[in-house]
């Protein structure tokens, strides 16, 4: 099992199992016991059949925005904490 792959949860079965979407209606059963707060609609990072993190895209800066800042020589790092 290699790289982690980001997948979207389309159904929670129980606290340990969920169904993730593979595209075109295909699904993969994954174990979500390591990410108990995962909800339907969340994207999770899946490695070896387990979700290891819920992917957080809140307050994320966009690649295109970065390009602009690089061009204008105005790179802000949007540091937090």
């Amino acid at each position, binding site marked *: *099992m*290699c*790289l982690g*792959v980001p997948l979207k949860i389309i159904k929670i079965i129980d606290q340990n199992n969920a169904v993730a979407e*593979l*595209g*075109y*209606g*295909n*699904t*993969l*059963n994954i174990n979500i016991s390591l990410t108990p707060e995962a909800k339907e609609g969340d994207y999770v990072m*899946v490695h070896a059949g387990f979700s290891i993190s819920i992917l957080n895209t809140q307050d994320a800066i966009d690649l295109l925005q970065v390009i602009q800042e690089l061009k204008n020589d105005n790179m802000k790092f949007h540091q937090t904490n």
Partner: protein
Amino acid sequence: MEKLILLSYGSGGELMRELIEKDYLKYLSNPILDELLDSAVFELSGKLAFTTDSYVITPIFFKGGDIGSLSVYGTANDLAVVGAQPLFISLSFIIEEGLPIKDLHKILESISKAAKEINVNVVTGDTKVVEKNKGDKIFINTSGIGVIKSNRDWRNREINIDDVIIVSGDIGEHGLYIMLERLGMKTDEIVKSDMGYVGDFVLPLLDNFKGIKFVRDATRGGVATVLNEIAHKYNVEIEIEEDLVPTKDWVLQASEILGIDPLYSANEGKVVIVADKSQAQDILNFLKNFELSYNATIIGKIISTQKPRVYLLTKIGTKRILESLKGDILPRIC
């Protein structure tokens, strides 16, 4: 009790005779086979193509076909890509004892259907049965003969700088689908093998375009391996672009999960074509008329004739080597 193939079926005796006369002839009958001689006897003239293949795929039944239809299409494809009209096929079965007879019937039916569809005849065959655990359900060995019309024979055409590389459609489906099957992953009807007879579009293509320099089906090892074979045979440098390679979404997802690049995944209904640049657009328009090649795409070109190399231009614009398949990534898939 379910009827099974037993060791005695392979010994050449009564059970074997019944199997042949009742079952094989029922599904595969044609004048040459019906004679049931030790060899098929026929007359043929012209330039002949002759190929052989073995099929050891597991699982033997899958979406889009089974080991039987695969053996017919696969053999016919090997003939079609060198410009031959496939005519006759031989089929040898090596059956592991215990195979349910109904599975054999299913396979025979599938072979019959495929053969009729592409107008080839199974003219001779053989059956052996091996002990339990000395085989794997069923292995099929084939050979095939076809006739090449001169105008379809591309073998002496020179490959030049700027010649384009075309793939006849979305790549990597068969290999990745079989991997998913073997891992027991549920898939819907979109996910299946791309198995098909490429002669349907390759032969008309060869009839209409003198600028076709090379055709090969991209089976084990995938498109990347075929590109390397071309590079080494003709001593050319090939460059393809990652962005241009046509790949279905489910194939991309499966490749990320399994860690297998679609460029190395087997295809059973796709070919790689090297063609004259001036005819490229017309070739693409022509291929759009056929079901198996509607999504034919130019993915790259020949950039020099100095040394054998294949390069990939990545999606971020960098360039790297694309090697052929090394080692044994995939389990038995064809």
